[in-house]
């Protein structure tokens, strides 16, 4: 019983992303660079986006924290690369709904659905959404003409 739950949470793909985060680069001249930080647990990521022709041309991700926070952010970088900001935002919204409301949505989240197991561990949902919240903040900053900022996750926010 115990191990089944752990198996559902820590899928191979997740540990793979944790051990080998994708787009684990520091971009030379990012359009926007935003730090996301959860003071409760210390999980931290820095997300860089480089825009070209209205698309997210490249993504840089650096961070430290638990397997869930780092793997989810790593998977996110793959999901948003080459997308428009609107598409990336839509995916972020769908992912948050997926975490909080479940998998009854018309649009598939594809590979991201391996994170489904997190929903059985409510205290860990914030880990999975750290990257996505940081992404939404970065897009907001970019649109406001800023080069970056810092998002500190609040304790009373579930996601």
């Amino acid at each position: 019983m115990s191990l089944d739950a752990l198996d559902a949470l820590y899928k191979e793909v997740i540990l793979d992303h944790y051990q080998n985060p994708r787009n684990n680069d520091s971009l030379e001249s990012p359009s926007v660079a935003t730090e996301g930080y959860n003071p409760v647990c210390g999980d931290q990521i820095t997300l860089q986006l480089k825009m070209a022709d209205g698309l997210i041309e490249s993504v840089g991700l650096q961070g430290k924290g638990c397997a869930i926070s780092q793997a989810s952010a790593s998977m996110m970088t793959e999901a948003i690369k080459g997308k428009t900001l609107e598409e990336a935002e839509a995916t972020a919204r769908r992912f948050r709904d997926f975490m909080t409301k479940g998998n009854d949505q018309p649009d598939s989240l594809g590979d991201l659905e391996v994170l489904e197991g997190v929903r059985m561990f409510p205290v860990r949902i914030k880990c999975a959404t750290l990257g996505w919240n940081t992404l939404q903040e970065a897009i907001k900053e970019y649109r406001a003409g800023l080069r970056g900022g810092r998002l500190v996750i609040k304790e009373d926010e579930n996601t």
Partner: protein
Amino acid sequence: MYDVQVVRKDFPILERQVHGRPLVYLDSAATSQKPQAVIDALADYYSRYNANVHRGIHTLAEEATAAYEDARRRVADFIGAASPRSVVFTRNTTEAINLVAYAWGRRTLRPGDEVVLTVMEHHSNLVPWQLMAQDTGAALRSVDITEDGCLDLEAFHKLLGPRTRLVALTHMSNVLGTVNPVVAMARAAHSYGALVLVDGAQSVPHLPVRVQELACDFLAFSGHKMLGPTGIGALYAREELLEAMEPFMGGGEMIREVQLERSTWNEVPWRFEAGTPNIADAIAWVAALDYLEALGMAPVRAHELEITAYALSRLQEVPGITIYGPRAAEDRGGVVAFNLKEVHPHDVGTALDQYGIAVRAGHHCAQPLHRRLGIGSTARASFYVYTTAQEIDALVAALHQTQEFFTRVAGRAGRPL
């Protein structure tokens, strides 16, 4: 020595199952579990003599006041304070330290004065002094630790000087477990005319603590970490210091006479207890003190020493583990913080929970200490009167399995840890 199995029967929560397994509660440094006697004392107060204190002239108010003031006397006795007047009830350790920072620090500290802290302090013994330093222009100085997780006493002595007004330090680290040589440090601080505040949140529940022997000026501690209810704690302060201090908060109870534009203050310690106090939890705290005194604080310490020594030796069997703090159990209290090489402490915490094992993972409100150690967080197992060697065995077995689980899954992903 007492029989741990008999003790365990007094704690109803220890019967619980978590995820289909018997609860192994290794988070007593965060909050302890409560014996039935404490739970009963709460119900007894609310069902038989609930009333406000110090005001009513009816029977219930008299009984409640007597029980509340008796609790103050019992808390004073427990720490060897000469008089109950030197004990102020607070919500917890944090509030007790804030009380000193505001009622003493804000009126006493001047620009150029120094407050000496240590890098192993809990945030509750750092942030109030940061706020005070901002308000008063006083400077903060911090004592570093040595490689073995003890305070660097040489550095401490160098920090002391004529400008030192206060040394505020923990008696026992909530992360490293280090028991600090408070007596010698207090003597050194006093030789410069500085006062000494001891954060006793982790020590008063676990060690025999006598304020006269510690020679501290202030001692802050909480009921909930020593078998008592949440929401009640205490500040011990030398009575003459309390006499000289202005109020912390204003309101009912803390006054003698109120005019529209000015007031005079009540005697100590009531001067520092504005508003209706936490009567029920103060009274139920006595049941916890009774319980600990029946066991005896020396046997409580002896039991934890045994469990800690056993945990330190067994945990070393886990591959890739790093254990923080002094090596010898005698130098520490019943907490062991550790990290596994390839598994983040939050993932360790989630995995152990599946085995019914409760540990804490995070920075344990000691971010500067974790930064000093060069890490973001740790997993922490902490022990108390009811902890058994079998529970340590369960922890070690689950850590082996956790390690094995993460290695296996990562291995299947084709990228071994």
